[in-house]
């Protein structure tokens, strides 16, 4: 590997790590959104029963 390729690899590692972090956060947001919808549904059912 050339010196330039090592530099690209080092910066690439940081970039990939950031992308992975964003992907994890996106997955977590999707789960939270799903859970919020479920809780809203439960609350609606509860309100209609009252």
């Amino acid at each position, binding site marked *: 590997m050339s*010196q330039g390729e090592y*530099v690209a690899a*080092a910066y690439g590692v*940081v970039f990939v790590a950031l992308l992975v972090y964003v992907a994890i956060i996106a997955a977590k947001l999707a789960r*939270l959104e799903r859970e919020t919808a479920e809780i809203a549904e*439960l609350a609606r059912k509860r309100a209609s029963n009252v």
Partner: protein
Amino acid sequence: MSTSSRNNHVPVLAALAAALIGVAIGFAFFVAPEDVDQGISQRIFYFHVPIALTAYSCFGWGAYKALLLLWRKDERYDLESYVAIHQGTIFGSLTLLTGSIWAKASWGHWWLWSENQLVLFLVLFLFYSAYFMLRFSIEEGPRRANISAVYALFGVVLIPVSFLAIRLAENIIHPTVFTREGPQMSGTMFLTFCIAWLAMTVLAYALYRLELLGKRLDSNLRELRELVT
């Protein structure tokens, strides 16, 4: 929540971090001159060292929050300490990865066990990695928070040891850039380093706030679900 207004700053922090990283990359490749000894591989320094310093800061911040938890007995510091240490291990693993690539490019080795700086950073990283094993082996509650806080505080001793190892060692390959005479680099190189350091600090803080926001939202939703069902 008392922290909700602070969490509104996350998008601003993220945008600022992205802009600063862009500027830092621009400076590292187009403004800073090429190093006479190491050539292009020295440009790894502009990300590797700021990432390492940010990892130290995160561990230090986690220890500070742990101290606040033990002192004030406020539960919220437990989560803040945990998230800071989590950020520290992310930046720590990036330090090891970028450092290893730089070592291969400069010295021809991925890792040297004879180098105190590398080994001590690895010890610090493994110490804080073990924090998660300890934390998740104990049931949630004040006992877990206290034990985790004490462990986080012990680790802070390793930070100056790891940082100073490079200066205490006699036979070293790892370069010493910051000496008592000041930074051993040109003004433009130092400016590039400072921008990159600021970028990494803002990025770490944005990620810290983002993770805290997610964790608090998660816990609030769990509480809400229990109330509704």
